[in-house]
C-alpha cells in the first residue's frame, strides 16, 4: 500500500511540475513518457469522470484517476479556471472552493477538518456543501461527479 501511495504521489508531483513548467521547452521527454505510461496502465478501471459547472451554467467535462484530488484534476487537464489552486493544495488559500450537491457532499468519506473549514470561511459564496477541491480525493464511486465553481473564481465579478 505504501508503495502504491508513493508511486501515486510521485506521479502526481511529476504531473504537477509538468504543469508548472509547461510553457518552457526545457522539460524532458522522459518525464512526459513516464506520466503517460503510468496513465495508460491505470486507464481502464481507474478513470473518474468529473464535470465542473461554472456559475454561468457552462460545463467542463474532464476526468481524473482514483487517488487524484480535484485540484489535481484541474491542474493535470489544464481546466480553464483562472486562479484555481493558488497555494497549490497547502491549505493556505480558498481559491479551489467547490460547491457540491447535497447528496454528493454527504457521501464524501472524510469530513472537512478545522484547517479546511478555516480557509473555507474566507471563501466567497460559502455554502453548507462547500469544500476545497485540494482536499477531495477521487474514488471510483465518484464517477460522474458534478461540482459547481463559485462565480468569483471563474467570472471574477467581485471588485
Amino acid at each position, binding site marked *: 500500500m505504501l508503495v502504491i501511495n508513493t508511486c501515486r504521489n510521485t506521479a502526481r508531483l511529476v504531473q504537477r511540475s509538468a504543469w*508548472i513548467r509547461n*510553457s*518552457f521547452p526545457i522539460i524532458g521527454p522522459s518525464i512526459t513518457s513516464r506520466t503517460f505510461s503510468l496513465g495508460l496502465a491505470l486507464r481502464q478501471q481507474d478513470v473518474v469522470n468529473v464535470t465542473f459547472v461554472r456559475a454561468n451554467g457552462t460545463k467542463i467535462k474532464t476526468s481524473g484517476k482514483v487517488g487524484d484530488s480535484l485540484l489535481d484534476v484541474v491542474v493535470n487537464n489544464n481546466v480553464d479556471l*483562472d*486562479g484555481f489552486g*493558488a*497555494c*497549490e493544495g*497547502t*491549505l*493556505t*488559500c*480558498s*481559491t479551489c472552493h467547490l460547491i457540491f450537491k447535497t447528496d454528493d457532499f454527504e457521501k464524501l468519506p472524510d469530513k472537512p477538518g*478545522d*484547517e479546511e*473549514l*478555516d*480557509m473555507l*470561511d*474566507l*471563501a*466567497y459564496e*460559502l455554502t453548507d456543501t462547500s469544500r476545497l477541491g485540494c482536499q477531495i480525493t477521487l474514488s471510483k464511486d465518484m464517477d460522474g461527479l458534478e461540482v459547481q465553481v463559485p462565480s*468569483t*473564481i471563474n467570472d*471574477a*465579478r*467581485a*471588485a
Partner: protein
Amino acid sequence: MTSNLLNICRRGLHTSSVRQQIIQSATPTKRICIVGAGPAGFYAAQYLLKNLSDCVVDIVEKLPVPFGLVRFGVAPDHPEVKNVINTFTKTAEHPRLRFFGNVALGTDVSLQGLRNQYHAVLLTYGSDQDRELQLENEQQSHVISARKFVAWYNGLPGADNLEPDLSGRDVTIVGQGNVAVDVARMLLSPLDALRSTDTTEYALEALSRSQVERVHLVGRRGPLQAAFTIKELREMLKLPNVQTRWRSDDFSGIANQVEQLPRPRKRLTELMLKSLNDQEKLSSSASKQFLPIFLRAPKSITEGEMEFSVTELQQDAAVPTAAIERLPANLILRSIGYKSSCADADISFDARRGHVRNREGRVLKVDASDSVDAGLYVAGWLGTGPTGVILTTMSGAFAVAKNICEDMAANALDTSTSKPGFEADDKRVVTWDGWRRINDFEIETGKAKGKPREKIVSIAEMLRVAGV
C-alpha cells in the same frame, strides 16, 4: 458577443507566431503597462495575456526584484502562501510579457510618459505607508510601525537598519489584524522554527537576543469585531512554549450571541471562547504569553507604558469612556492599517483614505468632474485600500483586467495608433533574466544555512548579482 470575442482571443493564443504577426500587423499591438510587480499586477497580467491575444504587457517595478508583499509581507513561516510565486513566474515567462525591475514611477518614469508609451496603464504599486495613531510621543524610537517591523524581518531594502529594541519584557501591539498577529508570532516563536525560514539573518540574530516574554494585542472593539482570521489565531494557540491568555471580562455576554453569527465569525468566536475556557482549566508551564486585549483605545504613550481608554461598544463602534488602563510597553508596534502613497502628481489620489480614486478600477480624472480618465486603471490595495487575503486581491485584479479588455473591445480607449512601449535607454533595468540570477544566488546562499533562500537586502548587491 463577449463569448465570441473570448473564443477568438483564446484561439489566438494557440496560433503560430507567423499567424500572430499577421493578426498584429492588421491592428496595432495593444500595449499595456502594469506598475508594480505584486500579486495584483501579476494576476491582472495573467488575465490580460489570456484574454487579449493581441496585447503585450510590460510590468515595471520600483525594486530590482518582483512579487511585492508575497516576498516582503507574507510571514517567513508561511512558505506555502508563497506558492503563488510559481504561477506568477509562469506569467512572467510568457512570451508577451516583459519585466523591468528597478524602475520607479515618479522618479525614473512619469505617469504621463508611460501613458504616451502605452494604450493602457494599470497601477498596482500597493501600499507602502501606514496609518498613525496621531498621539504625542509617537515618533519616539520605542514606537515603530508593524509594517516596518515586517519589512525588517523580510528584508525589504532600506528596512534593515530598523534596530527594534527587543531588550524589554513587554511588547504592546496596537491593532488586531493579521499583520499584528504575524508580528506577535514572529516575536514569540521558538527561534529554531524560524531558522529554517527565509527570515533575514540580521533579524534572526536580533531575535536570538530578544528578551520579549509577553506580547499584548490590543483592539478598540470587542471579540465579535476581532480583525484577525481564524487560521492565524489557531496558529497562535498551537505555538510551543506560548500560552494565550484572554480576559474573561472581554467576553461577557459573547457566548449568548454565538448562535446568531454568520459561520466564519461564529467559528472564530467559538475558538476564542474554547481557548478562554481551556485557560481556566489547564495549567501552563509556557514561559511566554500572548495576551489579546479588547475594548481599549490608544490614549497616550510614555516611557515603558502605554495608556488606553476603556471603550464601550455602541452600534459596533468603540466609544471611549472616562476609565483608563495602563499596559506595560517596552516596545510599541503600531498595526492599524496600511495606506498608499501618491507616486506621481498626475494620479487622482485620495490622501485622506490613502488610495487612488477609482470606479471599479477605472481611475477618475484629477479634476473634480468625477469622470473616468480613459486608459488609466488601478487594482489591488492601491485601489481598494489595504484589506483582504490573496483571493480578494486575485478576484479584484481579474475584475479590473476584465474591464480593460471590455473597454478596449468597446473602443472606450484609443488603440488605433501604435505605441512604442517602455524603452530601457541607459537606466539600470533588471529584466526577468536578471531576477533569475538574483533568485538562483539567493537560493544557493540559503542552502548553506538550511534556508529556502537568503534574501539580498541591498539594492546595489541585487543589481550586481543581476549583472546590470
